[in-house]
């Protein structure tokens, strides 16, 4: 990197060529006041607070938009500069109301700080202040146009960085204000990035409104409990209660970026159905019990089942939300104290597919995503995934890559946020991503565009070649609905790009992709001679990768999830569930419920009284993520600490401690009694990850639907994530529920007309497994013959309709819809 040397306030500093004075100064610890600068945005030069004196230059220069030159001499605090800043502040304070006593920003307000430092105590001008009504009508975000200083940060971060563009300047002159179009109610994705960048109190968090003043709170850095990004969120704690979350520049992998979940989702730990004491089922009802009583009961019952049916009749389900330590203790307890290998988790329907694909194709046992991988590629191909909603902050890197000039091609059936921010939208029939990839590979092989030397040396190349025989552009076009030319062009452009990336998500709730899609992606990567990390498949939740690596999966002979919960013969007698709610989050609820009812002993260890816990024989209360120490491993493979920042709820104890006590109650000491001891063993186990040699091999992947639409069930139901929620956990957050609180059914206007469905009316969705009632939303984003349903909400029971699939077929659900 070219470095430029310049002098700021007599101090010689070095900065990258092309940087601005402000960037060079901030990087070297010299603060220049600014109101409209943000590290993520291009210079704006609107506020004129950052003016500095440059030697040899007439007048003052705006530091945020003046590039540095070799030998430049800059003074940031001179009387002339101070006078200019004072005048700017006088003009800003002409309109800015001095309602600091009731403004939540007071104490961390940039304008307040600057007025304190440079501002005058009286104003030479006078003008009437704005008297606009406060806008509190939208969820989560409040707007106070009177306090706005029109720096434009919110507008720019929303448009340029977040890729939404929900707000803009409205009106002219003194009447200018920030508002959504036509001054309507704000209806955006509610990420809250605008709140963080607002230098004054014009945008605020409604959930934090008048809750506290900043100087009462301690700010704690915590890892967000939701998706696999592993963002650091700064949680403000007052009197032992978390009252707000925000991102902070320079903190965590996300560098201050957060989505709505990270910013508002923390309050699920204050849900009303938190478990406070252990409970044992007595005469059909769950009754409160003491820890000793409950653990003794579990130990005795489990002991007798092991004695009677053998240890293989016991199974366990781990949690992607619990820490690595918790999951490590679960598998240690099951393997050493119980002696069973029947350990699995919900990742079986999600990340396990990605892992299997990576293992088969690359021979790799540990493939975390590269956080900056999207930024290093020139052509990004995203297959049927809305990364911006499954991994919102990582998704921002895709938008950034597009903004930096990379080509972002998104193959998706629905018009998602990523599609809106893409360079090319390949609109295909849902679930046909694997066919598209195969079609691309066929074109690449036929036209000889692949890396012949490398690809032909990889195992199974001929098998791949023959398997692609049927995927001619014409055939693929018929399957995917994408024109032949588009497929050919995509294949040509993709293969000729300088650097490439294939990305897709691996959510358990997504039924448009399967193992085959991921294998096809891996094939494409190997065909063009790219390295395995060209294929980016993130782990779904905050600790999916950590749980997986800690050993919560069958090692040898153990039963996988399908055998445990969906097998017809009831070989499992006891099930231990940690932090999972199969009745809501697993597919085909009826089958799961049936299996759980047949259990002799069902132990549920959770933080809430979930629907599954209500069926349990014993319920053990555990600590939530903010109430215990531990570590999470993000999708990028970073092991990050979580800390106890608030007191535990009721008698709850951390999950790992439950296993320590339970193993002692069963008369077997696991020999680990603290987080530190467990962490030592865990890090020993994790240190072996990703060390094995890669062994590439092609795996032909065919396109097939497990169940296709028929005349009885003519529509295909696609289950998906929505941006504001993550799994079923976030639906217990009051803040996030104020944005979206119920499942809905999105369908195209043509289908709505065909089935006589009115917008926002209820519809019956019927599959061969059952029927549910959902509110219909008619949307242009959705293609015909397809309905989209978010999966997160327990009461909607969407999983009544779905079915599990871990192999290659695409598990789309054929349904019929009727007006209710």
């Amino acid at each position, binding site marked *: 990197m070219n470095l430029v040397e310049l002098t700021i306030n007599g101090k010689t500093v070095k900065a990258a060529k092309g940087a601005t004075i402000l960037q060079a100064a901030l990087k070297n610890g010299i603060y220049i006041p600014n109101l409209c600068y943000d590290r993520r945005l291009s210079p704006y030069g609107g506020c004129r607070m950052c003016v500095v004196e440059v030697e040899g230059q007439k007048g003052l220069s705006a530091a945020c938009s003046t590039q540095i030159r070799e030998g430049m001499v800059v003074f940031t605090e001179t009387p002339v500069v101070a006078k200019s800043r004072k005048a700017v502040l006088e003009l800003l304070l002409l309109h800015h109301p001095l309602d600091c006593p009731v403004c939540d920003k007071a104490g961390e307000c940039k304008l307040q700080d600057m007025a304190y430092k440079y501002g005058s105590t009286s104003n030479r*001008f006078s003008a009437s*202040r704005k008297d606009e009504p406060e806008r509190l009508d939208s969820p989560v975000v409040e707007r106070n146009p009177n306090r706005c200083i029109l720096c434009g940060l919110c507008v720019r971060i929303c448009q340029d960085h977040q890729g939404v563009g929900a707000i803009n300047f409205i009106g002219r002159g003194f009447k200018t204000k920030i508002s959504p179009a036509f001054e309507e109610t704000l209806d955006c994705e509610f990420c809250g990035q605008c709140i963080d960048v607002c230098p004054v109190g014009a945008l605020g968090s409604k959930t934090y409104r008048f809750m506290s003043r900043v100087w009462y709170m301690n700010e704690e850095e915590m890892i967000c409990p939701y998706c696999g990004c592993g963002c650091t969120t700064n949680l403000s704690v007052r009197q032992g209660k978390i009252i707000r979350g925000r991102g902070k520049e320079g903190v965590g992998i996300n560098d201050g970026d957060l989505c709505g979940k990270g910013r508002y989702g923390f309050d699920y730990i204050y849900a009303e159905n938190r478990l406070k004491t252990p409970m044992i089922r007595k005469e059909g009802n769950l009754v409160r019990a003491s820890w000793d009583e409950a653990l003794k009961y579990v130990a005795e019952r489990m002991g007798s089942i092991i004695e009677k049916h053998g240890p293989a009749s016991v199974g366990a389900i781990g949690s992607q939300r619990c820490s690595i330590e918790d999951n490590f203790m679960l598998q240690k307890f099951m393997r050493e104290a119980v002696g069973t290998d029947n350990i699995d988790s919900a990742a079986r329907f999600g990340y396990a597919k990605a892992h299997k694909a990576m293992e088969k194709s690359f021979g790799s046992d540990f493939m975390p995503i590269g956080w900056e991988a999207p930024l290093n590629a020139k052509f990004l191909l995203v297959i049927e995934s809305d990364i911006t909603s499954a991994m919102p902050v990582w998704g921002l890197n895709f938008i950034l890559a597009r903004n930096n000039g990379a080509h972002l091609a998104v193959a998706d059936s629905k018009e998602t946020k990523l599609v809106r921010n893409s360079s090319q939208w390949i609109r295909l029939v849902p679930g046909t991503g694997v066919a598209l990839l195969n079609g691309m590979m066929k074109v690449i092989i036929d036209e000889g565009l692949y890396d012949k030397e490398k690809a032909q040396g990889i195992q199974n190349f001929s098998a791949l070649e023959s398997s692609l025989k049927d995927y001619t552009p014409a055939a693929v076009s018929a399957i995917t609905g994408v024109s032949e030319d588009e497929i050919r062009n995509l294949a040509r452009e993709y293969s000729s790009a300088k650097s490439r990336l294939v990305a897709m998500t691996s959510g358990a709730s997504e039924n448009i992709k399967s193992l085959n899609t991921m294998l096809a992606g891996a094939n494409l990567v190997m065909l063009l001679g790219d390295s395995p990390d060209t294929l980016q498949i993130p782990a779904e939740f905050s600790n999916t990768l950590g749980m997986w690596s800690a050993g919560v999966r069958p090692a040898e002979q153990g039963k996988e999830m399908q055998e445990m919960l969906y097998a017809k013969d009831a070989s499992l007698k006891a099930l231990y569930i940690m932090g999972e709610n199969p009745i809501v989050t697993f597919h085909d609820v009826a089958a799961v419920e049936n299996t759980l009812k047949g259990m002799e002993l069902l132990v549920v260890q959770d933080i809430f009284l979930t629907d599954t816990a209500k069926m349990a024989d014993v319920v053990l209360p555990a600590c939530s993520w903010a109430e215990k120490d531990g570590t999470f491993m993000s999708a990028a493979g970073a092991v990050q600490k979580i800390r106890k920042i608030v007191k535990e709820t009721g008698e709850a104890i951390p999950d790992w401690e439950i296993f320590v006590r339970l193993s002692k109650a069963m008369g077997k000491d696991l020999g680990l009694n603290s987080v530190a001891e467990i962490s030592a063993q865990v890090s020993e186990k994790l240190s072996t990850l990703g060390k094995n040699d890669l062994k590439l091999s092609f795996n032909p992947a065919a396109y097939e639907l497990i169940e296709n639409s028929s005349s009885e069930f003519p529509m295909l139901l696609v289950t998906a994530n929505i941006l504001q929620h993550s799994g079923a956990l976030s639906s217990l957050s009051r803040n996030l529920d104020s944005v979206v609180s119920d499942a809905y059914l999105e369908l195209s206007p043509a289908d709505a007309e065909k089935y006589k469905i009115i917008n926002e009316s209820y519809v019956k969705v019927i599959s061969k497994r059952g029927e549910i009632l959902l509110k219909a939303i008619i949307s242009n984003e959705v293609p015909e013959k397809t309905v989209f349903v978010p999966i997160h909400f327990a009461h909607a029971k969407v999983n009544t309709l779905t079915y599990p699939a871990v192999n290659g077929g695409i598990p789309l659900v054929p349904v019929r819809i009727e007006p209710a």
Partner: protein
Amino acid sequence: MTFNELTKRIFMTEILKGMALTLKTMFTKPVTRQYPEEKREALPGFRGLHALVRKSDSSLRCVGCGLCAAICPSRCISIYTSEGVDHTKVVDRYEVEVLKCLFCGFCVEACPFGAVVLTEHFEYSDYSREALFMTKEKLLNNWDKFMAGKKGEQYFEKYWRPLAEDFGTPENQPVLKNRRAD
């Protein structure tokens, strides 16, 4: 023992000197006040027990800005606010731990509205800590008891008047777009 000391001891000079002083003060006015029967007027600006100012419509003047708590060196003030029904800021709790307070009066000076004050009342000893934990209601009662009416107004003008009250745009200054500040 020297000769001088011996004579002093024999003639009891020291005692006689003392008795002379006693005799002299017997005829002067006593300085000791017979507290609590006899009470002393507080000097103007006295810093006694805390109170929260009640506005003329009997509501609380405090808006819960928290500046008093921010400046308090002994951290004895805690304020809890929330959003009221009409979306305004409501002070739910305003608590002063009087036993922690060192009566510096910074809170009064920091208050931008003159809403928290120190009254002239200082006789509030009690047997329990709870009685000296001042809640919002107790603090408002203090105002009614000790400062309401003329006295409060006088104190406000003389001691509690926030600095912000004196700022403003002078009449003869240029006005933008012919509009005067409201």
